[in-house]
């Protein structure tokens, strides 16, 4: 999943970005309003973490302009403005969630997960696809009753495919959601990641959970679902 962090405090931006990448997210970061706006309008993000007091373009104005332009990306406001009026104003201007600084990193992470699930219409943090069980809270995977060790990138890829269960996802879409601006993705990186993931989750001798659609992309299917 891909997240944009717009925060002018260098240390806080670094800490949050590092923590989210370590958690398996593809993260882009911006230190001011105009740069953040450019990122938000240029890329498809699952969640935008937005500070309000930004140089160049303040967070609320950025949010307003984003909504006016038709972008429905989930926005989590992260700010030191803590009064009820501030929270109400932020939510009414289009934010999906509001977290006051200082905050626990785990709480920020959990709220981002909730927004990602909401984006993909998933209510349950524990998803079962045949013998595959994904716990999005604990970020663990069980395949055929056995725990599976996945790298953050592999987990992110599986998480994304599960969120788009039954839908063909193109390589471009996978690149956009799994990789951030730090990496210049090439299509074989996606293929390699899918291959590695299949090896870890597919039942021995059984059909793969991840089906290839030539020229189109990949689709994660429940076992027995129509091809």
């Amino acid at each position: 999943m891909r997240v944009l962090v717009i925060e002018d405090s260098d240390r806080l931006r670094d800490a949050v970005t590092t923590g989210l990448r370590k958690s398996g997210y593809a993260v882009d970061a911006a230190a001011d309003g105009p740069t953040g706006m450019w990122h938000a309008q240029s890329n498809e993000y699952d969640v935008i973490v937005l500070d309000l007091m930004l140089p160049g373009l303040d967070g609320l104005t950025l949010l307003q302009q984003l909504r006016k332009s038709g972008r429905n990306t989930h926005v989590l406001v992260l700010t030191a403005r803590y009064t009820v009026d501030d929270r109400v104003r932020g939510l009414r201007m289009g934010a999906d969630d509001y977290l006051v600084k200082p905050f626990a990193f785990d709480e920020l992470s959990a709220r981002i997960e909730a927004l990602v699930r909401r984006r993909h219409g998933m209510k349950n943090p524990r998803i079962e696809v045949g013998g595959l069980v994904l716990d999005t809270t604990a970020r663990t995977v069980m395949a055929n009753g056995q725990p599976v060790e996945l790298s953050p990138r592999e987990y992110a890829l599986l998480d994304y495919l599960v969120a788009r269960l039954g839908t063909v996802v193109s390589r471009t879409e996978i690149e956009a959601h799994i990789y951030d601006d730090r990496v210049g993705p090439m299509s074989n990186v996606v293929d390699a990641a899918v291959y590695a993931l299949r090896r870890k989750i597919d039942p021995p001798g059984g059909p793969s959970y991840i089906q290839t659609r030539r020229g189109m992309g990949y689709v994660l299917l429940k076992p027995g679902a129509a091809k």
Partner: protein
Amino acid sequence: MRPVASIRRRLVAPLLAGMLAVSCATVGFVYWYLREEIVEQYDLALLSKARALTGVVGSDSNGNPTFLLPVEAMPEYHRQPRDTDYFQIWRPDGSVLARSPSLGAGDLPGIEAASYASEYGFIDARLPGGRMGRAAWLHLHPSANAAASPPNPTKSPAERDMLVAVATSGEEFDETIGHLVFALVTASVTMSAGTLLVVLAAVNRGLRPLREVAETAGRIDAGSLDYRFEIMSLPAELRPIADRLNTLLGRLEEAFQRERRFTANVAHELRTPIAELRASAEVAMKWSDDHALTIKGLRDSLAVAGRMEAVVESLLSLVRGESNRATAKAESVDLAQAASDAWRPYAGIAAKRRLKVRFEIPCKTRILADRTLLGSLVSNLASNAVAYSPEGGQVVLRCGRERGRSMFVIENSNIDLTQADLPQLTEPFWRKDASRTDATHVGLGLAIAQTYAIAMDASLRFALQNECFSASVTFPHHPLCDSDMTDL
């Protein structure tokens, strides 16, 4: 404490009482006047009747007075169901010449005694049957039918006048007076009721603007402090009050806005470093197997701790400055030396930023001030000047005198501030950059400078002209100040 009567009550009660009193007095006067008029008319009518009777008094061949008309020919002097008339005529010797049939054998009482003083007169008389009536009498000289001169007790009986008296029982008079009383009482009651309604309506109408102002003021709360009364739409008596209320609302609104700004600024300055500290530490601990991340987390935590220490120190300086007023001691201080000492830590930064620095402080310039506070004050102003001058700009430190008072001024180039910013410069945590991105300043420097100036009974003023910002400190006048400063 006894409750104060409402304005409405203060107006209605005396207005009603006054108008009712005036009304009663008027009605009373009208009654008295009309009654007197009616009585006079009745009396004149009686007197006319008496005069008419003198026409039927003559004298016989011996000169004795005689009544020329038989009383039976005077039906009005017979007993009537109402308004019966009576007459009686006395001879000069006091014997009765004639009396009306309505009198019967009796006399009209009290006439002779009352008639002694004047030519004619009127008297209330008790009539036969016990009824009260009114009588008129006049004197008549037996030698002529005209009324005579007033009686003279020295005259002999033969020279005294005859006395003619006419009386009436007065039912008509009583009825007339009764009607008058009824009319006046009715008018009085109607006027009272009307007065009450008019007074209440007028007072309600008159107090409506006051009521509206009170209701409007009652609705103003912390969220509507931008409301202002429209002075020109109010009566003249309420305008000064509304004007004053508007002034107070303006001050209150400003104070609330200042407090909101302060709260938001403090929140940012204190919450953000704590958030940085927490996030850095939590991420480092969560992935503690990443050595480089752990080291970075510790380094960042240390840096944030340093910044928070600076914030705490600044806050303590601010509090110390506010409590220093009682302990500040004035001593003769070499201003050039104090300014130079305070400037020294910033000289390096100024050089790095290629600022053109100029000292215009004459030697042997001495002022009376607390040495420590003065040093801190100049230091804060210098820090501000160096930090906010654009690179390559100018900083000037000078002193002089204004209206006999010593003054220290520090000027610097500035392209960010506007005139509207000047009143907020000494608000704690105020910064021009609303995003507060620059972590090296927290916005307390000028607030601290202000408290130090106040502690020394000095005043700190700011000015902005032609992209030049100046901070001027004016020290209190002291006759012992040994200074050769020039006027600024």
